[in-house]
């Protein structure tokens, strides 16, 4: 079967060998995932959201299972830029990973600085700008929900970044396609859709929110139909590739995202449940494409939009 189908996908000047990637925050810096699935198998690895300095993340409860989903309030715990470049990146590259750092600075300046440094760091294939983390007080989600702030941040980041730039969109807006269109106009090479949906849990015994930060990010199969709809809507308005994310757990789920308009997908929460998930999807996709006589990914992308 190999050779009959071309799984590669182009994101700006970057070509990834297959459309299955690991979503930021569910793959750490690759070390732990490598024990299950070789990192070179993934189209790319989006690493944990980075800041210039290390971050401790949120105190208190950080994770809670919900029906077919999960709420998280990690708060962008990360090792900081220096340790990432000195220790984490070399490991990822040694294992053959295509590395796309997720950038999650708390100010415009910090994001610009991170983009500037990372985009000219050898071994960084692209960067993903996180404008949508719901779990930190400053910046984070405001970058992704206010079109004016989003535009300003993106313009500066685009200028600073000399490598392909992907923007990870927040679904916590009325019309996500407005943000995707703007990203395309400013010159982003792709958008990732979507980050987590804002959610909450109230502990009825303590009569208080379960998470110290009150709100948390909902992910997993529970959000899949919402994410598919977001991808479908963005595809109608933009020409840049869409990386579809939202509770993908099976081959069928992944194909649904491709047909809605994705050129690639990210596996997120399911990495936590089944660390072999991505590997199975890659093998399954190749078989599916051969059986259904699809020669390349773009033959499937957007099929649901019809003529």
């Amino acid at each position: 079967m190999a050779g009959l189908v071309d799984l590669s996908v182009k994101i700006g000047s970057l070509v990834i060998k297959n459309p299955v990637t690991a979503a930021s925050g569910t793959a750490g810096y690759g070390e732990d995932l490598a024990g299950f699935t070789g990192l070179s198998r993934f189209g790319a690895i989006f690493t944990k959201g980075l800041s210039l300095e290390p971050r401790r993340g949120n105190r208190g409860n950080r994770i809670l299972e919900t029906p077919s989903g999960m709420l998280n309030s990690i708060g962008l715990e990360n090792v900081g830029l220096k340790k990432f470049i000195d220790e984490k990146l070399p490991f990822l590259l040694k294992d053959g990973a295509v590395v796309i750092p997720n950038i999650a600075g708390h100010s415009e300046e910090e994001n610009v600085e991170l983009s500037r440094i990372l985009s000219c760091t050898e071994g960084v294939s692209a960067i993903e700008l996180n404008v949508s983390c719901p779990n930190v007080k400053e910046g984070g989600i405001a970058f992704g929900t206010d079109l004016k702030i989003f535009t300003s941040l993106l313009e500066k980041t685009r200028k600073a970044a000399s490598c392909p730039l992907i923007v990870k969109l927040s679904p916590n807006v009325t019309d996500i396609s407005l943000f995707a269109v703007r990203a395309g106009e400013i010159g982003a090479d792709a958008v990732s859709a979507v980050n987590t949906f804002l959610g909450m849990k109230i502990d009825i015994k303590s009569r208080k929110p379960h998470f110290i930060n009150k709100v948390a990010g909902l992910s997993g199969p529970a959000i899949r139909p919402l994410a598919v709809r977001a991808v479908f809507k963005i595809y109608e308005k933009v020409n840049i590739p869409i990386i579809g994310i939202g509770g993908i757990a099976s081959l069928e789920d992944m194909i649904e995202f491709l047909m809605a308009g994705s050129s690639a997908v990210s596996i997120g929460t399911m990495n936590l449940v089944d660390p072999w998930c991505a590997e199975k999807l890659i093998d399954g996709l190749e078989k599916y494409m051969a059986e259904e006589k699809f020669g390349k990914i773009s033959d499937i992308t957007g099929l649901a939009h019809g003529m």
Partner: protein
Amino acid sequence: MESAELLEKPEKVSTDHFLLKILLKGREPVPGQFINIRIGRETDPLLRRPFSVFDWSDNRASIIIRIAGRGTSLLSELSPGPIDVIGPFGKGFTLAENKDVLLVGGGVGNAPLFFLARMLKERKCRITYVYGHRSKGHMFLTDVYRDLCHEFIPVTDDGSEGTRGYAGDIAGGIKRPGDYSHVYACGPHEMMKKTALAFSMKSRVEVSIERYFGCGTGLCSGCTIECADGLKRVCKDGPVFPGDNILWDRMV
């Protein structure tokens, strides 16, 4: 998926507690490590549930589960057959040899201490064991624990068995810190904190920390705690930590 098999129907061993026996070929754990179980093939329940190993022999791992919610309730009703288990994972206890040791367990936290006690006994340790639980009805398999111990001290919240009180207070109150080379604890936060504070000056204290895990494989950073030497993931850097390394008051 690595192959594993639930060998028998889960056996109720006390109020809310069940014993599960799982065939895990060639995956020998050390005391303090955990296995990570996916309850169904569907997405609800979604996340795996971690359980420390209660005992191991002949490629069989036993675990004790406490019914805490829907996932553990479903697990207690499973039929024998294939089961999705990954692991064992995590850092286990250091095994003392030919020493006087103290073990302090609270609730289902007593489970990993049985495997530990058995290994310590094989290494000719003299074991003092403080076994705490809510009530006599909640205590599981006390006879098999008692058989391994030089001294076995049952403690219950309501006094229905042994001394009335909490294991951490009893251990810290009646035992002299200098009596033991090693002290091992697993149970509620306060119990482990009191035990660590009472014994860390003169003994090597090791505690097994419980946190809500997203993955159990080090990917999600959901179980991070603050230690004296930085941030640690309980699933990967623990669950067993030196007691004097934990910043107890930072663990909410």
